[in-house]
Every structure is written in structure tokens, then in C-alpha cells.
């Protein structure tokens, strides 16, 4: 935005940017190095920055719990729920942003209000429902729940990103005789892609980290990484190093995915290029 040609300004900004990034990242970094310490070293005072690294925690974690089963469940559930939510949300957001009616705003607000009933309060009814439909401890069951939980957010965000797209572009295309489908597929979606991508990313993260339904509706077959973490958290005894290792393994996929896809967002299509 501020195109500074002043070299020192650039360095100052760079310094500030890096400082902020390091401060924000530091706790994760700390957790990461703790995963390579022995349990005793993990709680030692003063905290050690230099120590003899060991991979015994990763070995112990892997021996105790089948990481890949949990991870694969997490992937399927998060991605599945996101796809389903997008399929439902994109048409709705399209209609509401380009053809708003009197009811649009209240519909949007109502959607958001469905998230206001605390999950804790409805655990038992949903559990019983799950039992009756045979969806307990299934991935499909969790996908359905997550789609429902995330749908309002996904609709909202895509709606707001669609609103960023100038109507003129679509109109120009329409004048050229494009059909609705072509308009949406070839013009709208590419323009809104960074927005849709960040929405998808958000939905995946929310599903990945969701720790209420995932713990209560699964036991073994469909248990995702949140259950994996819960099995290393706060047992009797020293557990910091192992929990750090388990957490690193749990967030690694999503972190890497987020980093990679974030590049897509940032590389971004500016609206200027379309002209």
C-alpha cells in the first residue's frame, strides 16, 4: 500500500514484521522443541534452550496410538465437511449477494443465530439421535454435524467475498450472452477464489480442531486427532514432552496445509488484472 522507496523504512518495516511473526509463533516453537526433550528436561527450571535432543517421545506416542488412523479420520472429516458446506453455501451466497431480497439480511442473521445454542446443552438429544440412526462413531455422522455447524460461517464469508466482486464485470459478461452457469464458473468463481479458499481453509481448521462433538460422538473407528490429543493430555504423571510430541504430530498436517494454501491466497488475483 505505502510504496516506500526509502530503504531504511523498508528495513524498519521488515524488522517489525519479523518481530511480530516471531512473537506470535514463539509458543508453537517452544512446544516443538519441548517435544524433543526428555520429560524431566521438559519441566526443568531454568527452561533449557540447548539440550540433548531425543526422539523417544515420538516413538512412545506412535507406539501407543495409531497416529495415521486418527490423522486420516481428521482429514476425511474436515475435508468432507468443508466440501459439503461449500456445495450448500455457494449457491445460497450467490443468490443472496447478487439478488438480494428483503429477507436476505434476516436470513443471514438467522443462520448465524443457529450457532448460539451451546453444544453442551444438546449433547444428550443428539447422542440419542445418533444412536437411533446408527451414526455414532462413523465419519459420515461427524461430517454431517460439522457441515451443519460450519454452514453459517461459510455462507457468511462467501457472501461477503462475493459482494467484493463488482457487479459490472458479471453484467458485462451477461451482455455478451453468457449463461448463468458460465457466468458463475468462468467469471465469478475465479475472481472470488482467494475468498473461497480462505473460507475453505477456515472451515477445515474449525473442523480439525473441534473438540466437543468429535470426542463425544466417536469411540474408535471415526476418532480424529482431537481424541488422539485427549489421550495424551493431563494423565497422572509427567506428560509435557509427550503431549508436545503428540500435538506437533497433530497440528503438522494442518499447519503445512495452511502454509501451502495460504501462498495461494496471497499470490492472489487482484481485481485490476481482470481488466
Amino acid at each position: 500500500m505505502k510504496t516506500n522507496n526509502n530503504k531504511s523504512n523498508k528495513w524498519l518495516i521488515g524488522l517489525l514484521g519479523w518481530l511480530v511473526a516471531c512473537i506470535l509463533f514463539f509458543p508453537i516453537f517452544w512446544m516443538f522443541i519441548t517435544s524433543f526433550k526428555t520429560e524431566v528436561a521438559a519441566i526443568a527450571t531454568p527452561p533449557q534452550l540447548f539440550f540433548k535432543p531425543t526422539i523417544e517421545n515420538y516413538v512412545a506416542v506412535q507406539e501407543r496410538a495409531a497416529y495415521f488412523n486418527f490423522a486420516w479420520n481428521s482429514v476425511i472429516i474436515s475435508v468432507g465437511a468443508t466440501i459439503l458446506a461449500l456445495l450448500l453455501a455457494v449457491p445460497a451466497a450467490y443468490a443472496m449477494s447478487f439478488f438480494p431480497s428483503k429477507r436476505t439480511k434476516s436470513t443471514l442473521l438467522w443462520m448465524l443465530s443457529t450457532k448460539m445454542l451451546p453444544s453442551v446443552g444438546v449433547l444428550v438429544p443428539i447422542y440419542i439421535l445418533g444412536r437411533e440412526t446408527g451414526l455414532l462413531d462413523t465419519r459420515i455422522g461427524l461430517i454431517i454435524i460439522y457441515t451443519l455447524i460450519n454452514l453459517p460461517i461459510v455462507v457468511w464469508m462467501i457472501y461477503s467475498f462475493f459482494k467484493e466482486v463488482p457487479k459490472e464485470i458479471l453484467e458485462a459478461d451477461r451482455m455478451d450472452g453468457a449463461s448463468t452457469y458460465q457466468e458463475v464458473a468462468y467469471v465469478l468463481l475465479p475472481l472470488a477464489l482467494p475468498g473461497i479458499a480462505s473460507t475453505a481453509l477456515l472451515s477445515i481448521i474449525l473442523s480439525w480442531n473441534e473438540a466437543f462433538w468429535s470426542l463425544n460422538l466417536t469411540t474408535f473407528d471415526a476418532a480424529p486427532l482431537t481424541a488422539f490429543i485427549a489421550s495424551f493430555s493431563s494423565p497422572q504423571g509427567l506428560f509435557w514432552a509427550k503431549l508436545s510430541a503428540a500435538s506437533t504430530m497433530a497440528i503438522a498436517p494442518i499447519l503445512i496445509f495452511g502454509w501451502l494454501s495460504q501462498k495461494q491466497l496471497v499470490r492472489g488475483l487482484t481485481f485490476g488484472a481482470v481488466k
Partner: protein
Amino acid sequence: MTSVVTRPQPPSESKRRSSRKIPTLALVAPSVIVLILWMVVPLAMAIWFAFQRYNLLIPDNREFIGLGNFIFILTDPALWISIGTTLVLVASVLLITIGLGTLLAVLFNQDFPGQGIARVLAISPFFVMPTVSALIWKNMLMHPVNGLFAQITRGLGLGAIDWFTDFPLVSIIIIVSWEWLPFALLILLTAIQSLDTSQIEAARMDGAKPLQLFRYVVLPHLSRAIAVVAMIETIFFLAIFGEIFVTTGGGPGLATTNLAYYIYLKALLEFDVGGASAGGLIAVVLANIVAIFLVRSVASNLDT
């Protein structure tokens, strides 16, 4: 991209304004129907249970007690304290994440060496599971004996801050802000990137200073993004639970008991389905009030 095929235009589409008849209802319907089911079923069950004394562990005690549950909860001083705590929590984290988020979005929009990597590091906290974040902060960073912060301040001769005893709510606010700042940053950054640079150039040519640029060009452009972030974050902050559960357990006293934790105590520690349902309904009312208030202050940004 222009399409190759020219379809015969029906007469109604020769008008200048886009009055294409598309089945808006059909497009919106699936989402709405699905959400109606999702909302109505639990809501109906909650209303059904809220008027009963129904404890899952004492099934023989079940009977209709009218407003008994509501009276029990509404006369509980802990409820009002928890509502207050909830509001303080939500407002603080909103301010911090949006305020700092905007500034950081401007910062990261700049071109500086290694900005890609720095950006990536900065959004990382959002990927960590909330309970794990809280555990790291509580035991590795903030603990007055073993934690890193205490080690540093002690090394500087300043003694140690007992975060969770003396500043419990502030500690929770710090943890949650750390988790959600990246979210605000990401959305606002994406929004800033769509700001037309030509607009800025024009303003600068007119002699606008950086601060004025920020206030009159950047901020208005970001207003919709800020509105979306605010609404989404509010929904989540009203339901903050995991961090509290793992660090302070709602205490000391009720200092960090928010409405979600309060309902948890009802629903899962007692298995008081009746009480939890009543509490849930109260939470819905509260959330709606907050939403109306928020919409009023932010609503203008929802329209084009």
C-alpha cells in the same frame, strides 16, 4: 473470457438492468432447510426439557416443574456473574484481535524481505487446538514457578507474576487473543489486498498523509471485512470453553466462569438435562441480544 455461444435472448433479458430470473429460492433453499432442521430439532428438545426436572443420573425423579429450572438459574448469582464475564471476555478479545489485526494487516501488506514466511509464521497460532494452546501457555509460559515468563522476569530481578491467580481473566484473554489474531489478520489481509492501488496513488497525489490515507481510504474499504470478522468472532467467543476448562476451571471463585462454562457445570457435571436446557435457552436469548447490538453498530457494512 467471453463465451462462444450466443443464446437467443428471451425478451425480458433485453432490459438494461439485470433482471434475470434465476430461482433464488431454489438456490438458497437447501442451506436453509438443512439449518432449520439442525436448529429446530435441538431447540425444540431444549424447550421440552427445560420445563422438567430431568437429571440423566436420576431418571426416576423426572417430572414437570414449570418454570422451576429457570427460576433456579436466574436466581443464581453465579449466572449473572458469568454473563458479565462473558461480555467482558468477548469485548476484550474482539477489540484486541480486530484492532491489532487491522494494524498487522497493513504491516504485512508491505513488501519486506521474507514477508511470505513471516506471514506464515504469524498465522500459525490459529491452527493449534485450543486446549493444547491453553496447556502450553499455562504450564510452559505463564506458570509462576516453572514457566518461561517467570524465569525471564526473575532473571531481571522483577519477581514473577502469578497469572492465573491474580489476573485470571486477563490470562484467558491473552490466550484467546493469541489464538484468534491470526484469523483476523488473514481475513483483513485478504481484504486489503483487494484495495485498488490506483485509488491510493490518486489520494497520495492529492497530498494525503499516511495517517489520513489509513483513515479515509483503507478503513472504509475494510469495513465489510471487519464486520464479518466481528460477527464470526463474536459467535465463537460467546462459547469459549476449552481454554477455561484446562487452565482455571472457572476460578478462582467465578473469575473466569463464562456462560458456556456455567452451562457445562450444569449439563455435564450434574447431567442435569433440564437445567442445562434452560441455561441453553437463556444463552440463546443473550446471544441474540448481543447480535442485535452488534448488527446495529455494524449493519451498514452489510449492504452494498
